[in-house]
């Protein structure tokens, strides 16, 4: 035998010769009778797909979402989402509410982007009435939009780590989100469902501490955000579970109507802030983060990089809040002119649309909310086919589903 350890050819040869020698003495082995051919209808040996209910009470579905999985072993063959467990018929309620009341229903949809949801209705009403909005309102709204986006992404990041088995990220995410909710609490009294917007402007002016606290937060979070990368982005286990998993192509994404960071990870530049600017987004500098890989890791990366952009937008605006009124003068009872109005805004999850059909009365004739999560969820089956069950958890985390937003 040669000195090299890994000369497999030689090792295999020597092994085979030995075994052949060992077997040779035995002889006269009777040929066994051929087995009966297995009939396909044999109920014991028949294989079949099996079904598993994931949810509605499952921690990683992030709400009451029920997925019926068709499985072949551990491989997913089909995912069928069953939604509607928390359908509150907000659209029907809107038909008998005034426009001022409707605003308060919308933050019960996507509660992590509540301020942006409120704003979508307010902008739709303001554009329909052709109201002149004070510049101060526009800038404050933009800052709080970005704070909301940050808070939502922080929560998503914490929960994403938790879904993949890392408890620390959950604590980190919530620790930093706490600072933003404190700012919100001081601004409008609420931490989650803010109701800070009213048609025409804001409910009250910002707190005197607002600018100082936001600046403190930005300085603080700029130091903390690299920690997020240290903890997860380079982690080998994390990379193994996210890279190349659940790939969506650009064509799929556009056809399924996917929007937000989920779509931008697949190369679809769909940011409403860039494509159809509203608020002060046309006067600030920010990059639209677009990646082309389309896998779970790209969706993760887009949100991390978006947090940097949000910080940059806040920094550009926080020292330039113009003086002035915090609300335009509106009539006590708002009536929209007859017609149809559509307003698009970019929430933390994607393209939120508000479609109002007005017949000139004090409440809309028909109100439709095009929620980003609803369309994003429709691509889940296509995305998760062929993956393992554990991968589905990772994919769902990066879809960032909020169920009240989907069910409405």
């Amino acid at each position: 035998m040669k000195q090299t350890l890994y000369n497999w050819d030689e090792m295999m040869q020597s092994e085979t010769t030995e075994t052949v020698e060992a077997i040779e003495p035995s002889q006269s082995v009777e040929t066994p009778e051929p087995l009966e051919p297995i009939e396909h209808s044999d109920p014991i040996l028949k294989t079949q797909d099996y079904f598993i209910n994931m949810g509605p009470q499952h921690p990683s579905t992030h709400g009451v979402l029920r997925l019926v999985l068709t499985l072949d072993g551990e491989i997913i063959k089909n995912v069928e989402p069953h939604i509607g467990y928390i359908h509150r018929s907000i659209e029907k309620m809107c038909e008998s509410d005034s426009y001022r009341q409707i605003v308060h229903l919308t933050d019960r949809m996507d509660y992590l982007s509540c301020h942006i949801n409120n704003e979508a209705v307010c902008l739709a009403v303001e554009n329909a009435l052709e109201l002149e909005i004070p510049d101060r309102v526009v800038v404050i709204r933009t800052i709080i939009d970005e704070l909301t986006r940050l808070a939502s992404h922080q929560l998503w990041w914490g929960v994403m780590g938790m879904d993949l088995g890392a408890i620390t990220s959950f604590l980190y995410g919530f620790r930093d989100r706490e600072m933003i909710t404190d700012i919100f609490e001081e601004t409008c009294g609420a931490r989650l469902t803010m109701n800070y917007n009213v048609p025409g402007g804001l409910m009250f002016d910002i707190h005197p501490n607002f600018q100082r606290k936001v600046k403190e937060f930005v300085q603080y979070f700029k130091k903390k955000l690299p920690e997020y990368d240290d903890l997860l982005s380079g982690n080998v286990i994390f990379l193994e579970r996210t890279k190349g998993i659940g790939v969506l192509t650009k064509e799929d994404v556009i056809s399924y109507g996917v929007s937000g960071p989920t779509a931008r990870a697949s190369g679809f530049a769909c940011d409403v802030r860039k494509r159809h600017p509203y608020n002060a987004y046309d006067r600030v500098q920010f990059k639209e983060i677009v990646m082309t890989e389309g896998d779970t890791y790209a969706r993760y990366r887009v949100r991390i990089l978006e947090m940097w952009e949000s910080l940059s937008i806040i920094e550009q605006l926080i020292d330039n809040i113009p003086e002035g009124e915090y609300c335009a003068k509106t009539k006590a009872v708002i009536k929209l002119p007859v017609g149809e109005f559509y307003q698009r805004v970019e929430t933390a999850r994607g393209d939120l649309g508000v479609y109002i059909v007005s017949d000139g009365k004090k409440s809309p004739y028909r109100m439709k909310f095009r929620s980003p999560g609803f369309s994003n969820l429709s691509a889940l089956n296509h995305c998760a086919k062929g993956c393992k069950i554990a991968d589905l958890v990772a994919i769902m985390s990066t879809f960032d589903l909020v169920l009240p937003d989907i069910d409405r």
Partner: protein
Amino acid sequence: MMSNDELQAFIQEHCADPVFETGKQYLNAIVAPEHLMRVAEALRHDPRTSFDYMFCLSGVDFSTHFMVVYHLESTTLNHCVVLKCKVSDRVNPDVPSVSSIWRTAEFHEREVYDLFGVRFVDHPDLRRILLDDDWVGHPMRKDYVDEANIVQLG
């Protein structure tokens, strides 16, 4: 990018008698259900229009008829149009499904079927999506009476 007039001429090429309304934001084109597929396919596949992104699909009940509203956008050419399908038959409201053209319509059409009872012909899986399977009636219709709701709003 096509202007509203060019889009109007384009839709007229593919449909017998469309009705146009120039809304405040978008051009609205109302077509009959029998022309819907031809117009939708032309809008999606013609390189001059290439409306590849449907960002909203909604149903509206106008008491006398239903309207299925498709908000379309082109991601390459950056123009928008609103296609509407007027369904006059309230007993058998049949509309061809566009889910083969835009996959996102699959979920949205199920929602419109659930809440308005508009039936989408050739839809791969037309079931209720938000409400229970055994729910009676379609609650977003204007003539729907909810007997469980003791507080009548509005």
